């Protein structure tokens, strides 16, 4: 048997810690999402539910390239990015259950995770709505003279909303500290990019605003990490927005109710050979960049963490019915029309 020490140690570009962070971030998301699908099938989780399986390397690369003070806003496919930003598996799973201990007290469900503490601004269910909102969040950072940036993520489908164009223009004109990321997983529900967009390289949209724009392989954390680091440095230096089209793939249906008949088995199988987690595990085996013991340790701790999250969600209390009215307004005594 080959031991870690025997392996051809290639010169590591990043520290063991960095590789561990990438692996752990991706594995946490993958296992969380698999559990989510299982619990959905048991009707513990209801409503619309979109998982991040296949896209984890984007979250991993962001994790190491950003600072905790950086802001983030995304669409309804939110679980993975929320976990990356620091929300716990417990509060996320409890939210999916609709429990009082969820990250938004059972009010938002799968599509609307938020955390002020982690500067995570949602979780938006209206396709494309977060694009101008992200620029606005960045506007506030600039206004307050911080050097934080706002990462604003949207899908390839969302890229065709008109709001994107208004936002790209203003963001450039006002040099807002915003990193736009199009997570191009190649489908918007059942529609491939080519069927509804004359431009299939989403990166080109940025160019008409003279926005620095790059197309990035989204299946490898280090590639994402490097692109985001470049972008963040540019933005922090006050030069304004940056745009990354990150090419990725979702292995599951658009939402839990989508059988995915619009793509071929072969296509799906091909992309599974590019599985970001599988590829990283493979490279660990080849190179020993992360020792076997460490890999196992991470696998074990993630497994425990997800089991614990489910147990926490199961045992948590439901919100009280009166809570329905709370948070519509800041005032607790707002005179609701109750008759």
């Amino acid at each position, binding site marked *: 048997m080959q031991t870690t020490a025997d392996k051809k140690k290639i010169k590591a570009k990043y520290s063991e810690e960095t590789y561990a962070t990438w692996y752990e971030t991706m594995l946490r998301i993958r296992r969380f999402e698999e559990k989510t699908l299982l619990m959905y099938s048991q009707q513990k989780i209801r409503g619309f539910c979109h998982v991040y399986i296949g896209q984890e390397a984007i979250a991993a690369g962001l994790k190491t390239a950003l600072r905790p003070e950086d802001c983030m806003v995304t669409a309804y496919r939110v679980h993975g990015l929320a976990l990356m930003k620091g929300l716990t598996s417990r509060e996320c799973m409890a939210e999916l259950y609709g*429990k009082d201990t969820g990250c938004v007290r059972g009010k*938002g469900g799968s599509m609307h995770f938020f955390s002020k503490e982690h500067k995570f601004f949602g979780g938006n269910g209206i396709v494309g709505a977060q694009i101008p909102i992200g620029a606005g969040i960045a506007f506030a950072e600039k206004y307050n003279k911080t050097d934080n940036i706002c990462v604003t993520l949207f899908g390839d*489908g969302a890229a065709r*909303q008109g709001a994107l164009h208004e936002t790209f223009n203003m963001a450039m004109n006002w040099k807002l500290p915003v990193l736009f990321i199009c997570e191009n997983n190649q489908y918007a*529900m059942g529609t491939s990019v080519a069927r*509804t967009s004359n431009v299939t390289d989403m990166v080109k949209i940025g160019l008409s605003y003279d926005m620095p724009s790059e197309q990035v392989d989204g299946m490898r954390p280090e590639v994402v990490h490097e692109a985001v680091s470049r972008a963040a440095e540019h933005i922090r230096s006050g030069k304004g927005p940056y745009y990354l089209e990150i090419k990725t793939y979702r292995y599951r249906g658009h939402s839990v109710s989508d059988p995915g008949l619009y793509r071929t088995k072969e296509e799906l199988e091909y992309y599974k050979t590019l599985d970001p987690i599988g590829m990283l595990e493979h490279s660990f085996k080849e190179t020993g960049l992360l020792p076997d013991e460490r890999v196992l340790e991470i696998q074990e701790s993630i497994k425990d963490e997800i089991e614990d999250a489910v147990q926490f969600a199961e045992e948590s209390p439901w919100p*009280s019915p009166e809570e329905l*009215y709370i948070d519509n307004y800041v005032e607790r005594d707002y005179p609701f*029309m109750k008759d």
Partner: protein
Amino acid sequence: MSRILTLRDALREAMVEEMRLDPTVFLMGEEVAAYNGAYKVSKGMLDEFGPERVIDTPIAELGFAGIGVGAAMNGLKPIVEFMTWNFAVLAFDQIVNNAAKTMSQSAGQFGCQIVFRGPSGAAGQLAQQHSQTFEAWMGTVPGLKVISCTDPADAKGLLKSAIRDPNPVCMMESEVFYGEKGEVPEGEYLVPIGKAIVRKEGSDVTLVSFNKQVKTCMLAAAELEKEGISAEVIDLRTIRPLDIETVIQSVKKTNRIVVVDESWPMFGVSAEVAYEIQKYAFDYLDAPVTRINAADSSLGYSHIYVDEYMPNPSRIIKGVKEVMYIKR
């Protein structure tokens, strides 16, 4: 002859029949063609009519609604499907500022014969942004007609009337009722826009509603029957113009009315019906008009919130007992 059809099949029949009759009618929206419709309402239509007349759009509600309005001003008869009315909010500019105003601002030179359709209302645990009811929003706009109906036969007849109507018409359907079955007459079947229908006759109290809450009223009426209370159930079917006459006639008979409206309570359909009734049937009322609405709140995800938010038979029964001064 009639057969049992689901609401989605009935709506499709209306569109297919009208498209066969009139080559200027076409359908556009997200996922309507290759995917056969997000809720399968347009299933098979691409095969029959081809991509010139059954058109997949990008996720760009403002843009494709506007393209629909322009096409309508230039003589075509678009049917614009919104995946749900929640997303039509992005297109309100084109619906409200353009479709509804073209006739008026062009002094009648340009019409806008267009149908905007899609589901409205809550559909389970879909949370704040995906659970809203839009009849009152659109119903307040002069220049628009608004239909809200989930009975398969009536929905078919109304959609056919809407496609033929020379004005912009908003049609509100229901995500959770697309599979709802009912008898639908075969062949040409038109239901006039602006006419309510008595779904169940009764003598003690009038229940007025629309869309899926009509069914909630029917369930409540069946329960009330067991207690010896006879409720008349009216389905408004059209929100604008509002057939208040049918409601007035009923109130003249029952002298009591409960309006059941899934919209939020303030400034909505229930408020409008209550106004009309106090104005035109004041002398016939034995109790104040009462209404059952969704809660005056955004709708949270947890089922706890959904249960607290939605109208249901027991809330309706409570309302009925209130107007009948029955304590219990």
